[in-house]
Structures are given as structure tokens and as C-alpha cells.
């Protein structure tokens, strides 16, 4: 009996274009036993199970994410993640130990890591996008020859110039990194893109810089009487210590501003992404996000970490359900691109170094 019978007559009519909000079907109640099994097996195997655990939890979150009636897929192989982790550990461990010992050799390691960094970024992006699917079509990251050069320019050259220019080029470097990632990403055979937003990146980073400078000035103003008294070999007056009670609210204010800037940057970027005629709009607002952060932190603290499944699902639900896809021609017309393998090495490196690749889910 042939496997294939033509059923094209059964195909739906052309799906209408329109706007679709992401939906998240996961729940803490459902994720809790999965997380517990992951944790138990990871402990029992002394950590060897953790790549398998990662794949299972990633699969849970991808497959619980719905857009226009279809779910996302995650297809990483645990063994490639395990190998990647071992390699990255071997790269990173010498640096971590040497920097703790304040050994000058840490700088040599740092130089090696800096040189390997952009290469790892490319590997990570290729892996992460490659193992993600939607409607049976895989995402991917460019394999064109120029992509490595772009990585070294955007993740080594520009940040270096940013340092030389006393930070003036940093917002541009950050912008170029996101721009380059979007520009080299694909869904199937269709390339993604990002409308430039250099001005907004400068404005937002400017707000952050001003906040940090103001915070620094306040700290100096508070600590100055103490330092002066020490310099004059006197015992500082009691009022000098009283000013220190202001440090905590000031610190909280800085965190608030940093959160707002981070959220705005993410929103700026997401709303400028495009895939052919498909675009995104994000309805994230500071109030709910702040509440999410504070309440999640408290939940974790009060439950000694056992609220983790609920915390993760709450965060995913808020971020996803306030994200809308605008597809004027529907989502039915995309086709897969050329297939290629990507090892997990880069992926692990990215989570280990905490490089924000920014377009994950």
C-alpha cells in the first residue's frame, strides 16, 4: 500500500490574513512534576542528566506555545548539548579559577575567550534556531561565508571601539548586534530583518547612563563625610552614617530604571522585526512586568525555590500573551530552506556565558 495518497483536495482554503496573539497553554500545575523528575534525575546522575532535562523542559515550553492554531517545536538532541557543555566547561573553567586567584594568566584565558566568543555566538545562534520549528518548518541562522566576519565585527570589533570611545559607541554596537542577528535569521527559506533603531538605542542607553551617573554622585555625596573624617583621623559623626540608609531606596530606583530600559530595548527590537510582510507588536508594560519580577522573587524565596514551575509559566504567559503577530497574508505561504546540521556546542556556550541572543521564546 503506498504511503502517499494525494490529499491536496482536503487542504483548507487560503487562510485569511490577520493578527494573532501568542497563546501559552502551559501551567505550573502541569510543569511541576516534569520539573521535579528533571531535578531528581539530575541529582541522581550527578548532573549528567541535565541536558536531557533541558530538552524536556524546552520541549514543554515550545509545545505549549501556540500561534494561529499551531504549536512550536524543539528538536535538540541531548547528547549534543552534553558534549557542548563539556567543551565549554573546558574552555571556561581555567578562566573562572584563574580570575578567582587573581592570577595574571586569567588575562591570557580572557583573550582566548574573547577571540572564541564571536565564533561561539554564531554556533549558538545556528544551533538554537535550527532546533526550533513552527508548522513543521525550521528556523535557521545564516551559513553564508560572510557571517563569521560579521560576528567578529559586531561582537569583538565594535565593543572594542566602544571601549576606546569611552562607551560612546556602545549603544551602536548593541544595536548592530541585534540588527545582525535578525538580518541573518531565517524562518524556512524566508529571511528575517529588523528596521534600524539607532536613535532609540542611544536614547534608552542614555537614560541608563544618566541614572548610573546620578546614582554614583549620590553615593559619593553620602560617603564623603565618612571618607573625609577618616582622612583627618577623626571619628565620623553619627549623621554621616544616617545617610547610608538612603542607599537602599536609591539602589531600588536604579534597578527600576534598568528594568524599564531593558524592557523598552526588547520592545523596540521586537516591534522592528519582520519576516517578509509579517511583523510583531508587543504590549508589555512596566507595571505588570515589575509586579511579575517582585512577586516571582518573593514566591521563590517563600517556597525555597519550589514555586519555580509556576514562576516560569507566569513569566512565559505574560510575555507571550502580550505579543501579537500581524500577518496580512496569513502564515500558510512559508517554505522550508536548505537543511543543515548544527551542533549543540555553541548553544551551550551561549547559556554559559549568558550572551543574550534575544530572539528565543
Amino acid at each position, binding site marked *: 500500500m503506498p504511503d502517499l*495518497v494525494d490529499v491536496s483536495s482536503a*487542504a483548507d482554503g487560503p487562510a485569511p490574513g490577520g493578527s494573532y496573539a501568542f497563546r501559552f497553554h502551559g501551567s505550573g500545575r502541569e510543569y511541576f512534576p516534569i520539573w521535579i523528575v528533571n531535578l531528581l534525575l539530575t541529582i541522581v546522575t550527578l548532573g549528567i542528566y541535565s541536558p536531557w532535562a533541558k530538552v524536556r523542559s524546552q520541549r514543554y515550553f515550545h509545545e505549549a506555545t501556540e500561534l494561529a492554531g499551531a504549536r512550536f517545536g524543539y528538536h535538540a538532541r541531548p547528547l549534543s548539548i552534553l558534549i557542548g557543555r563539556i567543551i565549554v566547561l573546558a574552555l571556561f573553567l581555567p578562566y573562572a579559577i584563574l580570575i*578567582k586567584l587573581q592570577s595574571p594568566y586569567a588575562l591570557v584565558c580572557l583573550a582566548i575567550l574573547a577571540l572564541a566568543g564571536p565564533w561561539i555566538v554564531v554556533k549558538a545562534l545556528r544551533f538554537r534556531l535550527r532546533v526550533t520549528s513552527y508548522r513543521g518548518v525550521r528556523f535557521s541562522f545564516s551559513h553564508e561565508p560572510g557571517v563569521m566576519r560579521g560576528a567578529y565585527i559586531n561582537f569583538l570589533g565594535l565593543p572594542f571601539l566602544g571601549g576606546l570611545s569611552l562607551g560612546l559607541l556602545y549603544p551602536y554596537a548593541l544595536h548592530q548586534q541585534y540588527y545582525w542577528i535578525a538580518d541573518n535569521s531565517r524562518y524556512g527559506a524566508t529571511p528575517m530583518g529588523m528596521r534600524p533603531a539607532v536613535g532609540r538605542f542611544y536614547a534608552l542607553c542614555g537614560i541608563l547612563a544618566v541614572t548610573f551617573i546620578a546614582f554614583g554622585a549620590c553615593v559619593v555625596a553620602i560617603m564623603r563625610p565618612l571618607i573625609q573624617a577618616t582622612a583627618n583621623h577623626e571619628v565620623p559623626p553619627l549623621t554621616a552614617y544616617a545617610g547610608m540608609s538612603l542607599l537602599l531606596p536609591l539602589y531600588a530606583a536604579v534597578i527600576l530604571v534598568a528594568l524599564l530600559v531593558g524592557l523598552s530595548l526588547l520592545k523596540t527590537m521586537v516591534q522592528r522585526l519582520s519576516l517578509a510582510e509579517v511583523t510583531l507588536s508587543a504590549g508589555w508594560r512596566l507595571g505588570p512586568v515589575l509586579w511579575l519580577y517582585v512577586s516571582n522573587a518573593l514566591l521563590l524565596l517563600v517556597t525555597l525555590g519550589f514555586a519555580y514551575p509556576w514562576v516560569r509559566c507566569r513569566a512565559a504567559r505574560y510575555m507571550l500573551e502580550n505579543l501579537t503577530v500581524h500577518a496580512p497574508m496569513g502564515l500558510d505561504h512559508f517554505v522550508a530552506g536548505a537543511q543543515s546540521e548544527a551542533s549543540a556546542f555553541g548553544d551551550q556556550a551561549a547559556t554559559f556565558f549568558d550572551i543574550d541572543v534575544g530572539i528565543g521564546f
Partner: protein
Amino acid sequence: MTSSVGPDTETWTGRLFRAGLSRAETVSVSARGQDLVLDGTRTVARHGYTIVPPIGGGYWRFDFANGDTLEVIGGDALAAALGHRPSLLSRLERSWRLALASVPVLLGIGGAAWYWGVPFAADQAAAHLPPWVERQVTQASLDLIFRDEKGQSQVAPARRQRLTAILADMVGPEPLDRYHLHFLDAPLIGPNAFALPDGDIVVTDQLLSILDDEEVTAVLAHEVGHVRHRHGLRLALRASGLSILAAAAVGDASTAGHFLVAAPVLLLNLRFTREFETEADTTALEWLSQGGRSPCTFSHALRKIVDSPEMKRAGEIAGHLPGWLATHPVTEERLRRFDAACPVKS
């Protein structure tokens, strides 16, 4: 999403994606033996598809050998009809009984790691770390402390020599070059002494101005206790271990969580410090109880330090700290052992 079509075949609604196309086709799915039947016309034999069971929810995926993908929400009964048996892992991942039973076990493992595992591992590591590690850490601290001229001590050279000789006498057969006495003028720190991991002991001018040599000797005996028990390195390693454990427990769920993780780690560090202070006190008490020395001198020294204006002021600022928030055990509690060993008030 099940609906009965024929008298004997149950059908499910699925979404079919042809290989390499994002176009969704709604199909009815049924099982005929172990074969999948789509829309009653297309039959896929068992060897022509792979079942991808859901993790948690009810999202079943069927990957066809030709690259097509079929999604069926709520396909549990369909998979069962096809002869699929859930794996042990799948069953465990749906078991709330197992999950709830695991909570106390995980709490126990976490608690044991927190209270015994990390301190034990840190102490083992401290005992096996090569000496140059301690040297390196200590040198970095010394460079920081004596970075500028401000800390230049005003203590007379004769007294310095006297105290250095007393320290050398105290440590006796231990390698002499291990211990170094440093003098520091530090109005902000006040009367205090501290030991660095490698055997460098720092005493402040403010301490020397209120204590006589005998009392300073008692304080030095306490600091030697810190060095001998390698408290500096053990504390640093224990603190690192706890931070790692706390971060692992709370995970990367929320950045705010990381700020809050620091607080319990700090509190536990305080517990370690008190434990180490008591241990150092024991060393001092043992040494002061031999060879015509008197444990009383330690009591005198500590009371003078506590009664100094700098310490009084610090006390006013901190208010009355509860026991669990204090780095040193409460003074009177601490001195009970010394007072008991102190025969007559001199």
C-alpha cells in the same frame, strides 16, 4: 476533540503540515490497527511514522517518514489505539504523587548540602589547596589594605619588635615565615585585629593605644587560632559554595531572585563567622591557660575593645543586633569561658 463518524471508527481532528510547507491542513485522523488513516483516504503504515508523545499536556505529534508533520491535540486515546504505551518517564512526569513525595526529599538533600555538604566540601578543598593559592589571595588583600600612605602606623619600633617576638614565641615550632605582624592606623575600623589566610596578622594603632602588651598578646593568640584553622580560606570557599547552591536552587527564573539570594547566603556566612570566632577563642584559651599566662588578659582586652568609643558608636548605629545577625558571639557569652578559667581578679 473526538467525534464519532462511523459506527466503529473513532476519529480525531489533526493539523497536517506537508514537508517543508507552513500551510496547515485540517484532517480527520483515525487508527486502523497500527496504521494511521487521514481523512479516510491516506493510510500511513506503522513504519512510516514516529510518535512524539507530549511532555505534560496533550500535544501529540506524528513525524512521517516523508517529512510531513501531523499535530493532534488531545491525542492520548488515538496513540493508545495505535498501540503506543507511555514510557516510564512520561508516567513519572505526570505523577503528582511522586512530585509531592519528592518535595521533602529534595528539601532534605538541599538542606543537608546547605548545612553540611558545602561546609564539608569547602573545608576539604581548603585543606588540599596548594599553599601558593593562599599566598596569592592574602597578598591581594595586603596590597589593598596598605595601598596608600594613610595607613602608616605610628607605633614605636621598640613595641613592634616586642610584639613580633611575642608572636614568634607563641607560634613556636610552626614555620616562622608563615606569620607576619602588620601595623595599621585605621580610625574608621577602630581598635581591632584581623588575620589573613596565609598567616599575616594585622593590628590597628587604635587597638595598641588602649591595650597593654599582655592584652595584645591575648588578642594575637585568638588571631593565631584563625590562621591555624585556616578560617580565611575556609570562609571564602564556603561562601562561594553556598552562593552557587542558592543560585542553582532558585534558577534563572527572575533576575530579582538573584538579588534576594544574596541575603540568606549572607546570614549563613554570619553563622560560619561566629563558629570560627568560637574556635579561635578556644585556641586562645588553651594557650593562655599554660605556662604562667592568664586567660584574664583576654577578658580585659575584649572588654576594653567593646567599651572603646568607636565600638560604642558602632553599637549605637546597629542598635541591638539579634544573635543571629552578629558576626561575633555576644561578648559576655563569649567571655564566660575565659572568666571561668580566670582564678582571681588581678
